């Protein structure tokens, strides 16, 4: 069988025709993410390309550290291998574009010892087009578009960027989120303005937001009926010492608020910005505890730390805008905190057509 591969040069190579033999070939040649792949034959790649109006040779740029070009064709080839539908292409192209923004720091993230994965959060009409779920179990297995799109992005990082675990990807332990980490905003259950509007986009736009992040950490509160208790539990979950956001200044993080938690806040008159402001003010770590170990002092610190006494509470965020709030999930009372690599920035890009116009779905 012939497959479209070497994603940097678009060379065609011949691989085993037998599906089982192809899996072994993919494992031996470092293409595999550990699960079975669909061979990216020219026919399959062609069908995948039908999901976008971008020409196949359009490049989104070099993916570090290997610096092979992420072309629309190479994105499609990895999408085929991941089992995506063609409707995933607009999200995959936009996610790749966003991943390559320098502030996202793919350079560092692709090789770091930190357990970060590319988080892909999608907001807007493209979620229905691509079938990405923002509802129950949005971070879970079995949701085809969530899993396959996240998987395709990981394959792009590995097969185009060269980040193979234990080789170029030097993650000490890694994270299951590296296998796949894609979800949508639950707009139907969102009591606030859509996330994309909070980021300055139009409601009719679709956006893809990426950052290199840890997997989600549960925020369980089945008790609080008012913002006072709930917001404190969210803040306390953010206030751990071992995450990178604690010591890397100018970093951001995400709270995925489940709909029931969001409605507790909204019913009490809280908007998204109120939760952002609360967390910016309340999520702090005590200097007296932090100074006993950990990463304090590894990065440049604000000057006033020199005058810190043990009781001084140090902020996690530098601005309330560093706290990103998205509503997601189904029934129940579990929200999620998504810490990041720190040396990365939450970056959103609008889904567009090949002409650059905002895509409408």
């Amino acid at each position, binding site marked *: 069988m012939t497959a479209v591969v070497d994603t940097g040069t678009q060379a065609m190579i011949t691989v085993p025709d037998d599906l089982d033999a192809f899996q072994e070939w993919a494992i031996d040649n470092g293409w595999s993410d550990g699960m079975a792949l669909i061979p990216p034959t020219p026919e399959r790649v062609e069908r995948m390309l039908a999901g976008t109006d971008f020409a196949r040779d359009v490049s989104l740029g070099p993916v*570090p*550290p290997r610096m092979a070009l992420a072309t629309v064709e190479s994105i499609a080839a990895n999408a085929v291998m991941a089992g995506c539908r063609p409707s995933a292409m607009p999200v995959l192209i936009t996610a790749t574009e966003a991943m390559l923004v320098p502030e996202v720091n793919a350079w560092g993230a692709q090789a770091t010892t930190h357990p970060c994965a590319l988080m892909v959060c999608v907001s807007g009409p493209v979620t229905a087009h691509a079938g990405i779920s923002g509802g129950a179990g949005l971070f879970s297995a079995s949701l085809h578009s969530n899993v396959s799109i996240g998987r395709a992005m990981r394959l792009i990082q590995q097969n185009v960027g060269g980040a193979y675990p234990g080789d170029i990807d*030097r993650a000490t332990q890694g994270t299951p989120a590296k296998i796949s980490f894609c979800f949508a905003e639950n707009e139907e259950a969102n009591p606030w303005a859509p996330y994309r509007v909070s980021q300055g986009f139009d409601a009719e736009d679709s956006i893809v937001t990426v950052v290199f992040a840890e997997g989600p950490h549960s925020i369980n509160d089945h008790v609080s009926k008012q913002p006072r208790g709930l917001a404190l539990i969210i803040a306390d979950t953010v206030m751990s010492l071992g995450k990178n956001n604690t010591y890397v200044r100018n970093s951001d993080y995400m709270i995925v608020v489940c709909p029931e938690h969001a409605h507790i806040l909204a019913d009490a008159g809280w908007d998204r910005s109120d939760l952002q402001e609360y967390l910016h003010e309340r999520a702090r770590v005590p200097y007296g505890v932090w100074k006993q170990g950990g990463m304090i002092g590894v990065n440049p610190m604000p000057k006033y730390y020199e005058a810190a006494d043990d009781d001084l509470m140090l902020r996690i965020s530098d601005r309330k805008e560093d706290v990103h709030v998205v509503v997601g999930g189904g029934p129940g009372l579990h929200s999620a905190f998504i810490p990041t690599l720190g040396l990365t920035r939450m970056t959103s890009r609008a889904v567009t057509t090949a002409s650059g116009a905002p895509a409408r779905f």
Partner: protein
Amino acid sequence: VRTLTVCTEVFEKMAELERNALGQPDLQLAIIGHPLMNRDAASLEEAVDGIMPLIESLFGAGREGAP
């Protein structure tokens, strides 16, 4: 401009990949043992001593343009 990249051994392959990808296959790499964190001063000095010959050969006095 003479340039040297210092990295620990576990990042050597990545450094090689990057220098080739960026069109600088002749960029000098100085490789030291891993890990670097938590080393005491003496151990760090030992690591530096190990790469000093390479640094001196690249930047040392007597080399054209050396400071």
